[in-house]
């Protein structure tokens, strides 16, 4: 038996016990996300593809699965979808420029020893790939914040006659409450993933200067910072799209 199969079966079992039908849906969505990710990688292989544009398509697909498939198509999921899309487009443009300037794309000296056997000149623009990776690492958290805000706002407006302004502030407050926990989730996930590398830096007795200028370290730190900025940025955007859709539909 394979470790991954065992873990997947246990996760599915737990999701069914704790969540019933919606647990099954959560599990399937995890699976669909994996498929979309692999398909995206396949499209990236064609050097003629504009990877940034492709990433936006992938993000649309991923948010459709995670918002519409899990919660159905309605006003709050539409608002969350729009907010996710707007935030990610905004970030993607900026991140692409940042990767270009900071030169953190591709592989570092630390990793390339094992890559000796491979041809590294593959014609794919790794700057765009790096931007895509940073965006995709945070999409889960951005969608989570967006849907939490739009669904709380919809509940709130049902029971109160809040003005647009009050509603916006309510949404912002909900967002601020999740900001701390969601950034935490991502930070620790990244820490866990980078642990091997950090130990290795220490083992090689890299100086502080070596570490902060290293390519891998730069790309990891920028990923963390982008995640934080993304999670913060989606809060006002989701509060805004929620109000916008409410007015458009009425």
């Amino acid at each position: 038996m394979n470790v991954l199969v065992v873990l997947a079966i246990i996760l599915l079992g737990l999701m069914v016990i704790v969540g019933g039908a919606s647990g099954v849906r959560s599990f399937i969505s995890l699976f669909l996300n994996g498929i979309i990710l692999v398909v995206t990688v396949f499209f990236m292989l064609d050097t003629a593809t504009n990877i940034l544009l492709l990433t936006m398509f992938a993000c649309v697909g991923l948010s459709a699965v995670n918002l519409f498939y899990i919660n159905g198509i309605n006003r709050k999921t539409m608002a969350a979808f729009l907010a996710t899309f707007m935030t990610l487009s905004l970030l993607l443009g900026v991140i692409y420029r940042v990767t270009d300037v900071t030169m953190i794309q591709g592989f570092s000296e630390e990793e390339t020893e094992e890559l000796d056997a491979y041809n590294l000149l593959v014609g794919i623009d790794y700057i765009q790939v790096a931007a895509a990776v940073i965006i995709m690492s945070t999409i889960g958290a951005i969608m989570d914040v967006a849907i939490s805000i739009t669904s709380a706002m919809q509940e709130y407006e049902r029971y109160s006659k809040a003005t647009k302004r009050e509603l916006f502030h309510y949404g912002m407050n909900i967002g601020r409450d999740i900001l701390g926990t969601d950034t935490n989730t991502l930070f620790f996930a990244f820490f866990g993933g980078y642990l091997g590398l950090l130990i290795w830096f220490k083992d090689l007795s890299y100086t502080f200067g070596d570490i902060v200028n290293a390519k891998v370290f730069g790309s990891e730190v920028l990923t963390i910072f982008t995640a934080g900025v993304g999670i913060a940025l989606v809060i006002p955007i989701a509060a805004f799209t929620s109000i916008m859709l409410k007015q458009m539909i009425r």
Partner: protein
Amino acid sequence: MKKWLAGIAFVFCILSIYTVYHNHSWYQTAIVTVIEAKVIETTSLQQDQLYEQQLTVEDHNGQIGILTNTYSNSRAFDQKYQRGDELFVKGDQIIGVKRDKYLVIAAWVFIFFLVLIGRKQGIRSLISFALNVFILFMAISVYVRYEKVNLLVSSAVATVLFTVISIIFVSGRTAKTTAAIIATLLGTSIAFIVALVAMLLTNQQGLQYEEMQFLTRPYHIVFLAGLLIGSLGAVMDVAITMTSALFSMQHTATLQEIKQAGQTIGKDIMGTITNILFFAYVSGAIPMMLLYFKNGLPFGYTLSMNLSLEVARALAGGIGVVSTIPISIYVSLWLMKRKQVA
């Protein structure tokens, strides 16, 4: 008070950026600035193109020199340098790019957005982030420095510290904090133990450690420690969300109603939080997967080589997340009952 703090932050911001742009004397390696870059030769390859660049550079004393550099369209392992880039050099060999200044600027952008939008909560998460980074570095230093220290033990100690500090920062010192801390520690332990048992039972079949081969240490231990820390954030997220919702109903609802509300909230959040973990882990494998595919390696091999550890981490984290839902409910109810009796 607020303006006063913002003023100090602003001064710090300007000072740190100025410093990092003028810190060349901190480095023992020579640093040069590119003042002109021009392509002198282009070679076409089967899938890519190579460019040879002639760089006119200036060092700190104003001395001009010429360096050559080769880059490709893909830039997977080479760099295209432009006017203004600062490079570390040894002789006429470029050994790195000076990136510290960009990181400092990015850090300020990060701080600015978190504080501007998150206000008090933003500042709190920044402080807890800083403390957590400090604990992480301490744990790693202790582990690397002392041979007798086991990585799993030092990660476990770090995990307890991370949990207590982060939760107190997010929700203050109340009854729900106790509940969230207990639920987080139990949930994380479950994620860890399930992963460990699954690995032992299957003889680690299906896990490909090649991507960690650069480590001179037992990599399955490093992997397990990473799994423990990685699951922690997500489990904490669930525990905090659940306990704060449940404790806010404490005075208006019966225990039975609170339990039911907990189950509904749990259903809503378990999928999204597992997804956060999934994306955070799996996306990082994309660059290497592209390289494998482009080098003609088979589909199954590429997937298992690059994704096995990431998927295992995501699944174990998911197991932690889902089991934390009932744990949070029972721990909260138990604490509420105890208070009612007393």
